[in-house]
Structure formats: C-alpha cells, structure tokens
C-alpha cells in the first residue's frame, strides 16, 4: 500500500479536525479526497505529509512508519500544499532550478527538467518573470510544476487547480493522469467534483473529519445514485401546482417561479407518469421535460447534507 492509516485522529483543543480515519491507498492510483471547506482535507494532508503529528492513530506511507521516520517519508513524496508557496524575488526558471537543487537533483537533470516543465506547464512567456509579478493562476502553475523537478513515489496535491483557468486546469489533470500511468500514486484533494470524476480511480468523501464513503466514482454513483432526477418546465405559472401534486411523494416544486417540477426518486418513471396524468387532467401545458442520472456532485451534496443534519 502507498498509504495506510488506522484510527487517525487530530484534535485542536475541543475541535476534532480528523476523526478516526482509516485509509488504504494502492500504488499507482489516483485517490480523490473530497469534502466541503473545513471538512478536514488539509489537516489530513498535513498529517500524511508529516507536517503535523496526529493526536492518535498510525500512519504508514510507502511502507514507512511516518510518525517514527518522517524524514524518510518526506524524501519519497512530493507535496503541493493548498496555500501558495514561492520565493518572491526569483524568476520562474530560477525557482524551478533552485527547487531541484534543494532536492539534490543533479545539475544536468535540473536543467533538462526545467525546460520540460516550462514547456508542459506553458510557462515559456513568463519564464523570466519574478514570482512576485505573476498572477495567482500563474503562480499556482509554477508551484505545481516545481514539484515535478524531483523524483517521487507519491504525490499529494491539495486543491491544485484553485486559481487556474479551464484550459490550464484540463492540461494539469491530463498531465497528472499520464503521470499516474507511469506508476505515481496521487492523493488529490478537491471540492470540484467533475475533476475528481475525471481524474480519480477511487474517491473518499470526508465531512466533519470523518470518511463517509470510499469507492470508485462509478461504484459511488451506483450505490448512492440510484435516484434519477426529472425536470419538467411548464409553459406558464400555476399557483395551485403545489396543491395538485401534494399527494405525490418524491416531487418538488420550485415555488419561486411556480413553473418547475423536479422529481427525485428511485422510481422516477412511476412518479413521472402520475405527475403527467395530473398535468393533463388540469390542462397544464409542458414546455420542456428532461431526465438526468444523479451526478457525483448530487451524491456528494446529499452525503454532506445528511452528515450536517442535527441528528448527526
């Protein structure tokens, strides 16, 4: 396993940021770690990268006890933290080169990699610019590119696409996909579900420091996403719509406009036929009707909503 944790806890006073996490991440996989802001994603990354010690529990990274031998772990991993990190007065190419030097990469290889990464991460135009003069997105690109200056077996990326434009974002995801194919294990935190779906082999959903589910994106959708969503848009507003549909469970009416009916149900087809009968009986005209499978985003939102409910 690339990462194994058992009963991992991290508390700050009364606040439990990480609440008994167990992970088993296989080598060569892209593992997505999803959660809303404040769910415990960054704290978990800090624990796994040995930046902070756990309150209790065990962490094994690449077969090494990370609590006893943090330096040995750090020599084998790469980390792109959520917060920006840069040396303001160095140029982009000098930043890459110096970062390689800090990792003891041979001078010749450093030179070669700097050129490769400038090319891959589209940094050619800004290579001579100082970090302090870059935009947030450019700085982020340099920060991520820099991490590939050295060899590693496991890469942690904490929301690496924040601040990137859609094209840079897609390029990065494709680059990571290719890297994973070469055997690199990637631990990827995000709250952008489409990214996770595109990139990750396995996904864990975390909220309030607890893991709610771990599975492949397809399996998560099949387990939690059996509901379908059907949207009916009416030609005009009907004030009595809610009253008419009162007896049908699993349907929601958008009361703000009075023109939308949203059906979310495991038996959406049956509910749909009931709704259609009522609409026909009452001469209510339909403008548009669409059916969608539940997305990972909807599953994620539902899980988070359920755990945030007072009972939980």
């Amino acid at each position, binding site marked *: 396993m690339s990462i194994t944790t058992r009963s991992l806890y991290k508390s700050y006073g009364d606040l439990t940021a990480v609440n008994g996490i167990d992970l088993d991440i296989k080598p060569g996989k892209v593992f997505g770690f999803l959660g809303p802001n404040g769910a415990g994603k960054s704290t978990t990354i800090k624990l796994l990268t040995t930046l902070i010690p756990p309150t209790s529990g065990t962490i094994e990274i690449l077969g090494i006890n990370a609590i006893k031998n943090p330096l040995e772990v750090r020599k084998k991993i790469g980390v792109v933290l959520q917060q920006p*990190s840069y040396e303001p007065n160095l140029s982009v190419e000098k930043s890459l080169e110096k970062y390689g*030097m800090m990792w*003891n990469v041979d001078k010749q290889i450093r030179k070669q990699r700097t050129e490769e990464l400038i090319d891959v991460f589209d940094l050619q135009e800004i290579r001579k610019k100082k970090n302090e003069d870059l935009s947030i997105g450019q700085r982020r690109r340099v920060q991520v590119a820099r991490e590939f200056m050295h060899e590693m077996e496991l890469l942690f990326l904490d929301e690496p696409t924040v601040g990137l434009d859609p094209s840079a974002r897609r390029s990065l995801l494709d680059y990571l996909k290719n890297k994973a194919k070469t055997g690199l294990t990637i631990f990827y935190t995000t709250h952008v579900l489409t990214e996770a779906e595109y990139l990750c082999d396995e996904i864990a959903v975390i909220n309030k420091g607890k893991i709610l589910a771990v599975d492949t994106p397809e399996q998560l959708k099949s387990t939690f996403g059996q509901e379908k969503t059907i949207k009916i848009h009416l030609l005009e507003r009907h004030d009595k719509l809610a009253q008419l549909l009162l007896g049908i469970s699993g349907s929601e009416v958008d009361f703000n406009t009075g023109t939308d009916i949203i059906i979310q149900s495991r038996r959406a087809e049956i509910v749909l036929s009931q709704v259609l009968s009522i609409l026909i009986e009452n001469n209510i005209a339909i403008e548009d009707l669409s059916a969608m499978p539940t997305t990972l985003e909807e599953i994620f939102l539902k899980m988070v909503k359920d755990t945030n409910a007072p009972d939980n």
Partner: protein
Amino acid sequence: MHPTIRLVNRNLTISLNPGFLVWQVIFPIVYIFVAGFAYTALIDSVQLGDVSLDYPAFIASGMIGFNIMNSTLVSGIIIWNDRRHGMFEQILVGPFKRSHYILSNVYTIAIVGLISAALITSIGYPLLFKSVQFNLLTIPFLIFASIVGSILFGSIASIISTRLRSSEGFNVIINTVFLFFAFVSTAFYPAQGAPEPLATGFYLNPLTYLVDIIRAGIFGTFNEFVMLEMLVLVSVAAVLFVVAIKLLTKLDL
C-alpha cells in the same frame, strides 16, 4: 550535498539580490567617506586607550560592526518571507528537518556577516591604514566579532520574525530596534564625553561591545575590559540564540 548546505545555497540566492548588496556597500561608504570626513571638523580625534585615532578611522572601524549587524537582518527577512510566502511549510514537507532549516539560517548569517566585515574592512582600509596595529589577535578578533555578532543580531531578527505576521509590524519593529542599536552605540561616536544616561545606554547595547572588540583587534587596544565585553557578547548571543531556536522549533504550521 548535505541538506543544510543546500538550504544555505538557497538562502544566499534569495537574499543576496543586487539591491541588498548595493545597500550593504553604498550605505557604509557614505558613512565612512562623507560623514567620516565631514565630522572631522567637529571631532578632531578620538582617544581609544593609549591610541589616538582620527575620526574617519574611528567611524570606519565602527562601520564594520554596524554592517555585520545590518547584514544579519537577512536572517529575519528570510524567516519572515518564508512564513509569509508559504516556503516555510514547503521546506518542511521536503527532505529537510527543522534543525536543517534553523542551522541553514545560522550559517547564512555567519557567511553574510563575515563577507560584510571583510568588505567594509577592505573599503575602509585606506582610512584605517595609518592606525592599524596588526598583531596575532587582529584576524581572530575580527572573525570572532563577525560570527558572534552575526549570531546575536541574527537571533534578534529571527525572534522578531517569528512573533510578527504583518509586514507593517515587522518593518516597524525591526527598523526601530535596529535604529536603537545603530545610534545608541559607540559605532559612530565615543562613549566618553557623551551625557551620562546616553553613555550608560551605549553599554546596554550589544553593538557597542561588538564595535569595541573589532577596534581592539584592529588598533591593538586589547585589555581586560574588552575581554569582559567578549564574555558578555558571547553570553548574550548564546541566550538569544537559544530563544530564537526555541521559537523557531515551536513555530506553528
């Protein structure tokens, strides 16, 4: 290459920018050659033990200590910048221990301090030439002063940088503290003849001790009082160094 050496390499690259180097050379040159000769009209000579110095020689030797102190600001600036720009955490998730980071800062300030002392000694040498009393202690004294002075002032800058987060706060505090060190000292003027409270203030300032030791080495005015000053300087440097290390070790992530 050892991790600490790699970090020293990085520290020197990020801190020795052209602006800093110009500042490190131009500022003392102005003091030595402009203030030094301009004040000669007011201060004819300064008595240092048995030696009588002209003012330019006096201020040139004082500027060596002043420049050592100024150059060690680098340490505080490195730590503060690393925290502000996320490099502190980034380094600590890399192949380094906290002790590598701390030691790299100590070595960096020692190197910058030594270079700075050598630079000002060379620049000021034409003025010092007449009065220099080269002896066996001259070079060891200068090296001692450079290293102990660098560690002492570097520790102060490091302590300040670990306690402050805002750039305004850092700049105000560091400039105030170093302004006091610079001008309430014997770097620019002798203690004898100064009003009593000010003369006492001079000896509450480590820069005074540093400058006295440098002058003792250059002008051969070594005596028991200078030995005491060396002891005080080493003790204060050791205490401040321990405090700085403790604060850096406990620095939140």
